[in-house]
């Protein structure tokens, strides 16, 4: 028998429900459970050669690695959430052994219980809003009858008109985004915003002006999606995109409680 590879314990989620038996984790490992205080920590044994501190710092910079691991982490959490309420754990939380995981359940069981109650029967939805591409704003200015002013002055006037029109469109979009966020938040148990994604990274068209998450009662999901569609129809200055359902990633922070 060869020496076992040193492993750490990767934490995916905390739940009270039975966990599906055949889940595969970020390292291709079989996912298992560590129990304590009526809670089940969903974990997997990962080799420290790839998932130890030093290796993680390096691997997290590798997009292919990060992408694969993020999707595997999400797949486990998604399968657990499909069974019942669960608190997702942030990517790359690795313990030395099961005792440390039990210690976390021991120290923070009240907070986990509180968060589990909060997300029970609720689902996270994402809504992103983009500034809609405006038609070239300086056409009317370009067609304006020539005045006695010189071409340079006319050009500057056109530039100014274009800038004003663009600024007005952005103001209009900003007002609409605030109104949309308020309408959607009113249908949700909780709402929060992420920083807008960079266009270069996300590859979207138009400036992102909202990157929000809403925690919605499962019974209200259809109504929420319909309201997103309605907002999209009514707000000419912005374009909306609905994502989800998500595990309650954006509403599972124990830090401030």
């Amino acid at each position, binding site marked *: 028998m060869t020496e076992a590879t040193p492993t*750490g314990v990767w*934490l995916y989620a905390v739940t009270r429900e039975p966990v599906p038996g055949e889940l595969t984790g970020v390292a291709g490992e079989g996912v298992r459970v560590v129990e304590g205080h009526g809670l089940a920590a969903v974990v997997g044994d990962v080799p*420290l050669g790839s998932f*130890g*501190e030093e290796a*993680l*710092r390096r691997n*997290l*910079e590798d*997009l292919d690695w*990060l*992408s694969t691991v*993020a*999707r595997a*982490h*999400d797949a486990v959490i998604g399968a657990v959430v*499909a069974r019942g309420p669960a*608190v*997702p*754990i*942030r*990517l*790359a*939380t*690795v*313990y*030395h052994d099961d005792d*440390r995981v039990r*210690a*976390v359940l021991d120290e*923070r069981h009240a907070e986990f219980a509180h*968060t589990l109650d909060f997300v029970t029967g609720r*689902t996270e939805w*994402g809504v992103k809003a983009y500034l809609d591409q405006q038609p070239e704003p300086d056409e009317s200015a370009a067609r304006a009858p020539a005045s006695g002013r010189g071409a340079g002055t006319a050009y500057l006037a056109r530039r100014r008109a274009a800038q004003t029109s663009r600024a007005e469109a952005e103001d209009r979009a900003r007002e609409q985004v605030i109104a949309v966020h308020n309408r959607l938040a009113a249908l949700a148990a909780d709402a929060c915003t*992420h920083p807008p*994604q960079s266009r*270069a*990274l996300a590859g979207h068209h138009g400036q992102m002006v909202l*990157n929000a*998450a809403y925690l919605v009662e499962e019974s209200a*999901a*259809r109504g929420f*999606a319909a309201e*997103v*569609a309605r907002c*999209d*129809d009514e707000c000419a200055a912005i374009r*909306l*995109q*609905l*994502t*989800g*359902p*998500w*595990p309650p*990633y*954006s509403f*599972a*922070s*124990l830090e401030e409680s």
Partner: protein
Amino acid sequence: MSEPVPAHLADRQIALVDLLDRVLAGGVVVTGNITLSIADVDLVHISLRALLSSVSALRPADG
């Protein structure tokens, strides 16, 4: 506009950026007694450096 009928959790088609928004910045942060938490690492650097390197790799002739 997206399908107004909510899809099932298991059938999601997920954009990587949307996922990274959530798994890197969302979820419970547990610190102490661990080998590494992403909370200990500069998040913005990780996601941006990794993503930007992929973007620049896609655009060899960047002016």
